[in-house]
């Protein structure tokens, strides 16, 4: 079943070309400069974290990259193609999907239906085929259900597949949101505070899941997170933001000891 869900990348060794390039991205809301010239790169299969105090502009960066806001200036390239200013649904189809800080599931639909909706873009059946339930249509639906089952198993939600998504426990909702993204076979997964509201055990599971996604499904992960132990343990690169400005970039060890970061988080003595 795994060939259903995993995207085959011929040579994972090719990691030199950046997957996502963000260059001097700025976003202004009226008089407020929410994001000020943020520049970074995410490479294939990299786990890249954006951290910073509340209100630093992290989610705004996500919204700009994902096409939910139109950035004031700067450029965003996915796989070498400019995506800034494009509508969010087109960006998602190019392989850049995200989760939300406040989980956004289709709450009145069942868990498995949530996963079917996100396969909408991979539809191979037409209107008339569905109307007459042709064998091809049935096959496509079965395949979609299989794919959903695969991902439900992966995030440990198979037993609750037919429940309403809104009735799941919070941690389960978070995992479902990630599965819903992964089923679109993205190149880059953006997670907006995935550990928020999770208990320590669930956070450890999340850590393992993210690593697994990278290892088995060749996805790069861009995440915003406040849980420092998670961020430091999992990330390849970290960008620290404060008041909309990037104040440091580097591997976890550098960030941990960077005086500007310490100052931003703990204040001046």
């Amino acid at each position, binding site marked *: 079943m795994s060939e259903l869900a995993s995207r085959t990348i011929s040579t994972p060794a090719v990691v030199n070309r950046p997957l996502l390039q963000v260059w001097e991205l700025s976003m202004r809301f009226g008089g407020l400069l929410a994001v000020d010239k943020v520049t970074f790169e995410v490479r294939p299969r990299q786990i890249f974290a954006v951290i910073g105090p509340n209100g630093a502009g992290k989610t705004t960066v996500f919204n700009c990259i994902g096409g*939910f806001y139109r950035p004031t200036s700067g450029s965003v390239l996915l796989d070498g193609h400019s995506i800034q200013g494009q509508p*969010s*649904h087109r960006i998602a189809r190019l392989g850049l999907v995200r989760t939300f800080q406040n989980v956004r599931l*289709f709450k009145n*639909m*069942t868990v498995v239906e949530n996963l079917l909706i*996100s396969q909408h*873009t991979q539809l191979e059946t037409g209107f008339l085929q*569905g109307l007459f339930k042709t064998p091809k249509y049935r096959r496509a639906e079965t395949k979609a259900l299989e794919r959903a089952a695969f991902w439900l198993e992966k995030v440990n939600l198979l037993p609750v597949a037919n429940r309403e998504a809104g009735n799941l*426990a919070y941690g389960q909702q978070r995992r479902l949101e990630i599965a819903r993204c992964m089923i679109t076979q993205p190149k880059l997964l953006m997670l907006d505070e995935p550990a928020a509201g999770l208990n320590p055990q669930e956070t450890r599971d999340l850590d393992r899941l993210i690593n697994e996604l990278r290892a088995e499904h060749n996805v790069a992960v861009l995440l915003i997170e406040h849980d420092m132990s998670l961020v430091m343990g999992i990330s390849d690169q970290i960008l620290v933001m404060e008041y909309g400005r990037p104040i440091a970039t580097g591997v976890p060890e550098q960030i941990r000891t960077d005086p500007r970061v310490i100052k931003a988080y703990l204040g001046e003595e």
Partner: protein
Amino acid sequence: MKPMPRHLSEAALVALLAGLLTVPILGIQIQVEGINVSLEGEPWPVVLAMVAVFVARLLQVPLKAISSLVHITHRLSLPTHLPKAYFLGLLALAIIAAAIWPFTASRGSVDIATLALIYVMLGLGLNVVVGFAGLLDLGYVAFYAVGAYGYALLSMHFGLSFWECLPLCVIMAAMTGCLLGFPVLRLRGDYLAIVTLGFGEIIRLLLNNLDELTGGPDGIGNIPKPTLFGLEFARRPSIEGGTTFHEFFGLDYSGADTVIFLYLVALVMTLFILYVINRLIRMPVGRAWEALREDEIACRSLGLNPTTIKLSAFGFGASTAGFAGAFFAARQGFINPESFTFIESAIVLAIVVLGGMGSQIGVILAAIALTALPEMARQFAEYRMLIFGLVLVLMMIWRPQGLLPATRPRLELPVREEGSS
């Protein structure tokens, strides 16, 4: 604590207010004596209204208590998980009953039933737009008009038959829907409602004023009825050498045949729409409609294009209205813009709301109730709108989810259910 006097004074105040408001409406009667028109005071209706309001206000507290009881005890909804065979059997029985019924009923009631079926079709179509996709369309009657005028004009100018025109009308209405939908579907909620409301009026005004094309307020007459594989329902064939239904089968001519035939055509058309909608809501596009209604941003983040999905719902709703419209024109034989006023949109919307948004059985029952009841209770015709409004208000208090709230067809993954992990 003396609650009674407070209630009394409050009720008196409300009654006084009601009196003030009703004086200009009920308290003054126009008297016509020859050429003289005079206004005369008529105190009784006002007094009556004031007493009614006073009593209603006093009874508000006990009524509220009752209403909360009703809410709890009133949870009738169809059993959701009937075995499939059982359900299909019931459905087949209902269809057979509906098909046999006109042969036993009076001509008048069959005619009313046909009208009811038209509203069922309209209700089902609008239910997709409002109930499933969550787009409030107040100009739904425009597409109904497009279908009706489409058939009337095509048959008048090109001599096309009803069955040839039907798909064309559907396409025309769908295209009109997409044409309107494309610019306005980025609007949300109230704004969309206002624009569609305006659009409905524009279409009606166009029909009224494009005299050369639509005949203006005079409308179009002599619209041919549907035929049964080319057999006309008439005393004499309208074209030279044609055969009529009664001649072909060697029957005596009976006017009731036409009425029954029209009813059966409407029934088949309704069943067709029902089938299409039931497939659609289980198809990916139907799922996308619902998902979009629930969370548009989440949809966009997953690569679903909101505009095309909304457009498909809007276009589908419009095509259903066009479908019903073509039949309406054929049944009436005469159409003019008066049949396509805003009140029609409002009635169809009321059908959807009363039945329960997204609930197809509810919509069907509501459509039948709202068309059949006024016909049965002709003597109360003056109070029709009053009762209509009252019913809607009471519904909003007691059963805002509609008579038969929607139960979604859920797609189940065959797995064993356990406690949460």
